[in-house]
């Protein structure tokens, strides 16, 4: 069991919806809130998203920014009991299937698709193919392609379709007239959630940690909702773009500026269904590990106390306590 402690470390990586984490650290807002609760929270930037989750899973961090899918597969699948402290947003068009000169998903049949394998892109593709009655096996192949090189890859003749996320999506759509958005995450709202997940034991032993982080986060959310230029510009630059570019990406992101919205999302009736289909996808790909006997081997707990998957192995919890406190102004 985790001990009470006063120093915490969060990891985050560059993505539209997570840029506030960098701003929190740089602007001193995090420190301010941490001080208020008598603790110290350090927020560390990763360039490599997977590495940040791996580091969290290995215990080097107390929390990490991650999607619901990756949380389920890596830390929860790896036995680290993890709680979604904050639901920041869901992808509402931020992830997309893009093809050259194709008009519908059916056209992908027999073609190679480049994407980051086993990522939310892969999940999005699977969900998309589902809608037109295709399976991954109907494609020529799925080629694992690093997100960092996706734009260059798209520019080559070998590549006919890619699945990726912002800012790459807007970059590709913007600079390639023949690029067509065949399917994006706005068609599966609420399925790709961008979270701040933390170690459940740590959180239980240190409620102040949850309070400080939630308080700081929603202060920045307030600034963003109010259109604070300075904050938004800082985030834009940190992600390597400018204000306009960042705002464009924000448009495809359903940010929960208001903690009440986030609470609502966590309590949504659709969430268990989403998590179950994500788990099935992961199991199908063998990501839940060789030890996983079935898709429901990891249990997910929801705010109302219901559980999907194995009740004996709950490793992923949606907890609205701290978001609710923010909504109530109790921080």
């Amino acid at each position, binding site marked *: 069991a985790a001990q009470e402690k006063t120093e915490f470390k969060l990891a985050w990586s560059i993505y539209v919806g997570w840029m506030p984490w960098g701003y929190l650290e740089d602007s001193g807002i995090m420190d301010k809130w941490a001080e208020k609760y008598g603790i110290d929270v350090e927020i560390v930037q990763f360039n490599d998203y*997977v*590495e940040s*989750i*791996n580091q969290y*899973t*290995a*215990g080097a961090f107390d929390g990490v920014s991650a999607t619901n899918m990756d949380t389920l*597969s*890596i830390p929860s*699948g*790896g*036995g*680290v009991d993890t709680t979604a402290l904050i639901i920041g947003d869901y992808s509402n068009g931020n992830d997309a299937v893009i093809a050259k000169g194709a008009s519908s998903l059916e056209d992908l049949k027999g073609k190679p698709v*480049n994407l980051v*394998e*086993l*990522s939310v892109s892969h999940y999005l593709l699977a969900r998309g193919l589902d809608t037109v009655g295709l399976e991954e*096996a109907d494609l020529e*192949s*799925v*080629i*694992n*392609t*690093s997100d*960092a*090189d996706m*734009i*260059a*890859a798209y*520019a*080559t*003749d*070998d*590549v006919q379709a890619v699945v990726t996320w912002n800012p790459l999506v807007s970059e590709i759509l913007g600079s390639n007239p023949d690029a067509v958005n065949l399917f994006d995450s706005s068609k599966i709202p609420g399925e790709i959630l961008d979270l701040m997940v933390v170690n459940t034991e740590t959180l239980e032993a240190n409620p102040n940690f949850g309070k400080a982080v939630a308080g700081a986060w929603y202060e920045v959310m307030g600034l963003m909702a109010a259109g604070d230029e300075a904050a938004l510009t800082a985030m834009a630059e940190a992600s390597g773009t400018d204000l306009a570019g960042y705002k464009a990406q924000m448009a495809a992101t359903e940010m929960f500026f208001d903690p009440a919205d986030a609470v609502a999302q966590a309590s949504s009736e659709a969430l268990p269904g989403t998590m179950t289909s994500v788990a099935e996808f992961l199991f199908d790909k063998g*990501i*839940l*590990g*060789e*030890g996983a006997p079935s898709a429901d081997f990891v249990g997910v707990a929801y705010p109302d106390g219901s559980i999907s998957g194995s009740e004996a192995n709950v490793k992923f919890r949606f907890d609205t306590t701290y978001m609710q406190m923010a909504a109530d102004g109790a921080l």
Partner: protein
Amino acid sequence: MRLINHIPARPGAIILAALPFVLIFVAYSVASDFRLTANPQDKLLPAPSTIAETAERLFTTPDKRSKEILLWNDTLASLARLSGGVAISAALSLVLGLAIGLLPYARSLFSGFIAVLSMVPPLALLPILFIVFGLGEVSKVVLIVIGITPFMTRDLAQRVMEIPKEQIVKAQTLGASSWVIAQRVALPQVLPRLISNVRLSLGSAWLFLIAAEAVASDVGLGYRIFLVRRYLAMDVILTYVIWITLLAFVIDWLLKSLSRRAFPWMEAGL
């Protein structure tokens, strides 16, 4: 007696040589055990027994979907790329090295250029490579070639220039043309060096291969490592790392033996 004059006896020497490996293994086992006690599902440092099981599975169990054993597919794909890249580099560096070493004109033309080229970080140029060579096998091979050829060329040119002037003059007095000198005097004398260059460059070649496979691929040792990193399957990663180390070792040993066999006029060397 001085330390330098203490020579371990036969059994002691073998135990000593094994010691670091044993220590690493014990350290790993302890660390793994420690983590697994805290969290039985910990993935970072799987127990040695888990790794052994995983390794056995990887080497013998075919993939559900493709009915092929992925590890062997990965190995074949990577070795093909590696050997392709290294072979092209070797050929290129041999031709360029001979030209630069023997012909003053070629020396003026290339030596500065290659010195600069050898300083360029090739990984940063990947996007351009992709556009020019596509995303397929070619760009992976080209990355290896770009990565290791400048170094090999510089070294070979250096070696050609180190061939005693006397031999070149002697060959001329025997009526040899530039071509005959290149091919009958210089070439055979730098071939052993080419092999040791290949041995020296293999480490970098693996690095570039893994980097290229991490960027865009659907088969290969580097691809698999980066893919399973997605779910921190360290048992798979460690199996692959050990396998790559073993492959590298065997290749190195083969090249060393080849060099010894093929060039009886050389001392053991390197």
